[in-house]
């Protein structure tokens, strides 16, 4: 799922400096799971903002809402009435949700309340780690289900660099070396021969973000 972290309060206060009445909108999906922008976090941030502004002598009215998924136009539409009553929106959904609201409400400024950080997995309660970079051509079938694009600091495709040491990455000592993980996993599966298959160079300029905006069109689903 998409992972995000709340922006520093002082930064958010700066965005909202010239507004007295805002909507703080969360999202009931990914950011609820990583506890950055769900209903609870909306309540907590709204409370903190109100108090900070009260203390500054410029009270802020913060309405609260948490649509089920902020990145779907139908759910954004549900906010229409509330958005009419405010001067600006602070969204603690991921960057996608922020943009959905911005597109939907052309006359209302929409500010991001979180930094959208990565596509990741819950390692344990309170710990999330990057797993996928949405590279556009998944090769997990060749690497035992461990992604070298997201998890190898150098995004190497054919075995570790010379800096892999005791299972850790030379770039980030606290991180596991992705190629050690791949080796261990293939070893466990009895598929070490896979390490000898060369993964060909990728067409980054065609498949990945390097080619510009990507789009998926399913004619069968269009209405």
């Amino acid at each position, binding site marked *: 799922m998409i992972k995000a972290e709340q922006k520093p*309060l002082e930064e958010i206060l700066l965005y909202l400096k010239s507004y007295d009445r805002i909507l703080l909108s969360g999202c009931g999906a990914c950011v609820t799971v990583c506890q950055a922008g769900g209903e609870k976090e909306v309540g*907590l941030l709204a*409370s*903190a903002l109100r*108090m*900070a502004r*009260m*203390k500054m002598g410029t*009270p802020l009215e913060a309405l609260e809402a948490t649509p089920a998924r902020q990145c779907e136009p139908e759910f954004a539409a549900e906010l229409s009435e509330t958005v009419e009553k405010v001067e600006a929106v602070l969204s603690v959904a991921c960057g996608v949700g922020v943009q959905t609201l911005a597109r939907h409400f052309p006359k209302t400024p929409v500010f991001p309340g979180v930094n959208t950080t990565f596509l990741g997995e819950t390692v344990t309660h309170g710990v999330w780690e990057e797993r996928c970079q949405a590279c556009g051509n998944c090769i997990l079938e060749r690497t035992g289900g461990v992604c070298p694009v997201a998890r190898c600091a150098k995004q190497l495709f054919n075995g570790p660099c010379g800096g892999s040491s005791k299972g850790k990455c030379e770039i980030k000592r606290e991180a596991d070396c992705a190629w050690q993980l791949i080796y261990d996993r293939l070893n466990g599966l009895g598929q070490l021969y896979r390490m000898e298959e060369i993964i060909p160079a990728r067409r980054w300029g065609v498949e990945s973000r390097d080619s510009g905006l990507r789009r998926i069109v399913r004619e069968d689903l269009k209405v």
Partner: protein
Amino acid sequence: MVNFEPKIVAFCCDQSGYPAADMAGGLELNFPGNVEFVRVPCAGRIETLYLLKALERGADGVLIFACYEENCQFLRGNLRAKSRLSYAHRLLEKIGLEKERIEICHLATNCGPKLAETLHRKSEQLKKLGPNPAKI
């Protein structure tokens, strides 16, 4: 502030803080003038939001009366309360409020006097800090 009687919201765990408050009442120990007790089944029930909301809605200070560490009936409730408290402290700093406004006190059912003393000490401390400037 001559007549300032700080409002304290005291969250009381049902396994320690609440029976201790009951005991203090039975012993006719007096409490500061403006305390609101909130009974919770376990300190682990206290969300960070409750701590902030109490201040937002008019409290000058908040106390959490929880079981001694390693004494939680639900194993980790008091530790959860402690980590939420430290998160709340970080938020208070950013809001510009003194973090002393929210505090945790560990006790057991038979600690009525400790509870009353803690409330009095908190009340005196809050009198020095003055009213919560961020309450709505």
